[in-house]
């Protein structure tokens, strides 16, 4: 019962670890320094999970979106955009908080003690729009416009930015597969530098990549206000005590905007509300209210 109690208290971390293990469980990839090539790769996983990770069993939605836009045949991807819409409309940024492997990496890094943590990030007001620029420019426009003689494009986000690809794909493969090492050059050094910067920032700031750079988070954020899983405030019982804002690791004014596009649904605010005015749409209280009709 001790264990069950501990699991319940840290349920989000448990789900993050299990889901990451589940979606990166192709052990053979690690043993042979290669990647999974079976049917699972036809389908996307919800989080930022590079399909070049030795253990990955599914396809990364951002990588796949670039792949379809890169192909000379298509100018738009119904398959991937449909996937993002369906997952976004259901979960919103719950994916970021509970199902994304790189989100888990940042959470673990932020737990590292002994470093002063910065809660109110200077320039946050403007920096948060950067992720939409990354989405539009690197994931959509550049792959569509810069093409080679065959009409094929390049995955610019994956190539120049994505730290998840470097950490979970590039570095493990380079370590496990000696044949790949001869190709390492300036680009790899750049990617590692980007990764190191994000790692260092993650120790000091909560989820810097998710807040300022991630194109997938940018896409899901558009659905936060309407997602089936969202938060609601009972205005009648809310006292404006701001316990929710104080509990939020990103200092979001939850009592004003419970479905901010920045919110990754970690749920700390829900636990902090003393008079139960702040609830998720899936909570028992809301379920009972629904039955009243």
């Amino acid at each position: 019962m001790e264990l069950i109690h501990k699991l319940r208290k840290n349920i989000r971390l448990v789900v993050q670890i299990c889901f990451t293990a589940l979606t990166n469980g192709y052990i053979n990839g690690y043993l042979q320094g290669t990647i999974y090539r079976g049917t699972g790769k036809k389908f996307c996983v919800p989080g930022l999970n590079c399909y070049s990770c030795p253990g990955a069993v599914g396809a990364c939605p951002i990588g796949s979106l670039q792949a379809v836009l890169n192909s000379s045949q298509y100018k738009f991807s119904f398959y991937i955009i449909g996937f993002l819409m369906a997952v976004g409309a259901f979960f919103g940024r719950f994916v970021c908080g509970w199902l994304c492997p790189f989100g888990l990496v940042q959470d673990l890094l932020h737990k590292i003690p002994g470093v002063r943590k910065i809660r109110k990030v200077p320039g946050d007001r403007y920096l948060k729009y950067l992720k939409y620029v990354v989405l539009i420019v690197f994931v959509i426009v550049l792959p569509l416009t810069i093409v080679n003689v065959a009409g094929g494009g390049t995955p610019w986000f994956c190539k120049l930015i994505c730290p998840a690809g470097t950490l979970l794909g590039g570095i493990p493969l380079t370590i496990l597969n000696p044949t790949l090492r001869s190709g390492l050059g300036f680009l790899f050094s750049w990617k590692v530098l980007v990764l190191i910067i994000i790692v260092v920032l993650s120790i000091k700031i909560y989820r810097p990549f998710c807040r300022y750079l991630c194109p997938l988070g940018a896409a899901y954020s558009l659905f936060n206000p309407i997602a089936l899983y969202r938060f609601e405030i009972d205005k009648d019982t809310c006292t404006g005590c701001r316990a929710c804002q104080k509990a939020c690791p990103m200092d979001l004014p939850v009592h004003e905007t419970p479905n901010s596009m920045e919110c990754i649904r970690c749920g700390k605010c829900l636990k902090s509300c003393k008079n139960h005015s702040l609830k998720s749409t899936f909570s028992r209280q809301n379920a009972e209210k629904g039955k009243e009709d």
Partner: protein
Amino acid sequence: MNKFIKRNYAGLMVFSLGIAFIAVGVYRVEIGTVFMKAAAICLECIGIG
């Protein structure tokens, strides 16, 4: 049930549209393109050359 639909109208509409888009994507054989890139290690995707 009706109250659920009313409260979540926007979300359910987008969700259904998303499913419809996926169906169109499958019809256009976009899955083949996804699979091609996902099952091969395209080196520039992971920052090597």
